[in-house]
């Protein structure tokens, strides 16, 4: 964890959205392309002011979200750590290029500040309606990493984490934030970059003529040279062989697709991030993420005061789904409650894992209002 006493630390009274920018810059992000959309626009505005002040920094406001993700992919191929931020409708527009990034293994970060939907829905109200869109929004079979943040400090930390995962596994990473977290202003300490472990994509160590851009390695992740560095290769969204050229050979297709899944699957323990609160002796488990996890945290304290043995499992990684933690909690608890600001997008996953061992109850809210601690407490106390 960051050592906040370092001399480069600064204190900020920041919005969640502003904290995302701090995290991105600490992680080494030097490229941002985006299109304004509430409630994510502050990320873009702060980036526009910050990036031209750093060496090689580049910011561009594109004509739409499709173009934004296209530019981000281009910049990442050219060697930059690149990101974009959007909200539900914009995220939908990005889905085709997101599929391209999965297929071509381009590291990048997409922050989706969720608002109420569907359609233009509730631009300034919170929701958690894009959880399954983040997992399954694009076309075809592919693994993906989806993270979430529940407070301003976490917005910074999880953005760094998102870049680290993106670079480590050569994959797009989606960070889901809800409108409450994005627009809450809190004091946070921003330590210098030396306080964090920062990952960079690996660079080929072989001469260009030996380089295979999509070679299978132990980790399933091949090195990635920037465009223009001498390692000329072909990047295509078509199913490709290890040299990057289009192929229709079943064996080559199979090994590509299996490697794409394996490179994420085999690192489940590294990727699955959760926080547990008073779960050691819990009999009633609450599983929450995003701002709802903060309400749940307070609800656990309220319940404990009244003698209910409740505990919280806060999900910071939503996909790949942290099933081992959920399974463990399910074995410990007589009942699990999943509060979320949608009609059950994560509780569906929880039920899939836990419903054989325990009962799963949901609290769903889709009226643009937050889920309060007392609402969760009520569900805990009603045996």
């Amino acid at each position, binding site marked *: 964890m960051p050592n906040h006493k370092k001399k480069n630390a600064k204190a900020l009274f920041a919005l969640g959205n502003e904290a995302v920018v701090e995290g991105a810059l600490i992680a080494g992000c030097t*490229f941002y*392309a985006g299109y304004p959309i509430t409630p994510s626009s502050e990320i873009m505005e702060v980036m526009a002011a910050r990036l*031209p*002040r*750093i*060496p*090689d*920094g*580049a910011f*561009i406001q*594109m*004509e*739409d979200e*499709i*173009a*934004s*993700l*296209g*530019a*981000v*992919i*281009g*910049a*990442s*191929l*050219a*060697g*930059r750590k*690149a990101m974009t931020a959007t909200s539900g409708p914009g995220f939908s527009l990005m889905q*085709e*290029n997101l599929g*391209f990034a999965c297929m071509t293994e381009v590291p990048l970060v997409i922050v989706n500040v969720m608002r109420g939907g569907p359609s233009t829905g509730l631009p300034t109200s919170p929701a958690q309606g894009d959880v399954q869109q983040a997992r399954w929004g694009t076309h075809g079979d592919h693994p993906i990493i989806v993270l979430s943040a529940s407070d301003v400090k976490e917005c910074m930390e999880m953005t760094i984490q998102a870049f680290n995962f993106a670079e480590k596994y050569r994959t797009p990473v989606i960070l889901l934030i809800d409108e409450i977290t994005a627009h809450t202003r809190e004091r946070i300490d921003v330590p210098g970059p030396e306080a964090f472990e920062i990952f960079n994509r690996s660079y080929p160590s072989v001469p260009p003529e030996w380089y295979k851009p999509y070679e299978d390695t132990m980790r399933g992740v091949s090195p990635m040279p*920037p*465009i*223009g*560095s*001498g390692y*000329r*290769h*072909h*990047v*295509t*969204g*078509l199913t490709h*062989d290890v*040299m990057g*050229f*289009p192929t229709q050979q079943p064996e080559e297709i199979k090994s590509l697709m299996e490697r794409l899944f394996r490179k994420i699957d085999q690192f489940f323990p590294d990727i699955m991030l959760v926080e547990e609160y008073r779960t050691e002796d819990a009999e009633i488990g609450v599983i929450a993420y995003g701002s709802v996890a903060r309400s749940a945290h307070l609800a656990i304290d309220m319940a404990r005061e009244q003698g209910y043995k409740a505990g919280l499992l806060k999900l910071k990684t939503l996909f790949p789904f942290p099933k081992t933690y959920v399974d463990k909690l399910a074995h410990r608890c007589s009942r699990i409650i999943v509060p979320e600001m949608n009609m059950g997008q994560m509780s569906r996953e929880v039920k899939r894992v836990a419903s054989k061992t325990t009962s799963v109850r949901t609290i769903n809210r889709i009226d643009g209002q937050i889920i309060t601690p007392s609402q969760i407490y009520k569900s805990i106390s009603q045996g």
Partner: protein
Amino acid sequence: MSDVTELIHHYLRHNKKFPHVFCAGCGHGIVLGSLIRSIHGLGLEKDDVCIVAGIGCSGRIAAYVDFNTVHTTHGRALTFATGIKMANPKLKVIAIMGDGDAFSIGGNHLIHAARRNIGVTALVLNNYIYGMTGGQCSATTPQGANTQTTPFGQMEKSFDLVDLTRAAGANGVYRGSVFHVNMLDRLVSTAIERPGFNLVEIISPCHTQYGRKNKYKTAVDMYSWLKHTCVKREKYEAMKPEDRKDKLPIGTFAEHDTKGLEELYADLRTSLCPQPTEAVEGSGK
């Protein structure tokens, strides 16, 4: 080895990439040749060139040439190219697109790339048709032409790519044809060399999908049509209006020397970032 063979060996990818997907008589191979001669003539290093292509027949050019090549999503080549150019302004970024790619699905990106004057060269291979998907109409299919989706003749008007790009503010706008190869080489070279956004519309006919439905049954028919239809811009402008009918001017249509967006951005960065004072070379201290 002859000069041509040398160019082929130097610039084309031999491992696995041939035979190519183009039909016999397709103009895209001529464009590929023109592209290579232009890059060679300008003396560019292979590593300094990045080819970004969209989807369709024209998009496949990227796989054959030994540069940094990116085969993107349909209509989005210019967005990828914009990101690459902003991230590394030293690269010569060339986007190869078809007419559908650049002006139908990617029309918005094209006018914005022209407006923001990003330092990318766009080659639009206009064959008036969606070739790879089986011959449906595009935004450039002439009124009255028959295609798979206009079996009773195209009723919509078509875009004039030159007018549209010029109006959107591109630094350079050119039109060439695969029949007029020497001129095409000059236009492509100029477009690659110049600052800002430069577009070359290249009439590259598709006799397989467009010709056979529109009275040009063979490749030869299409090329003789090109020969008689395309006239130099200067000559075209000197013609009487009634003679201009059925003629297509080719040549240079706009040429400005405005700095590209990536250059303006670099200037901004220099003005904002305090530069460390550099030691004077050879000062001897």
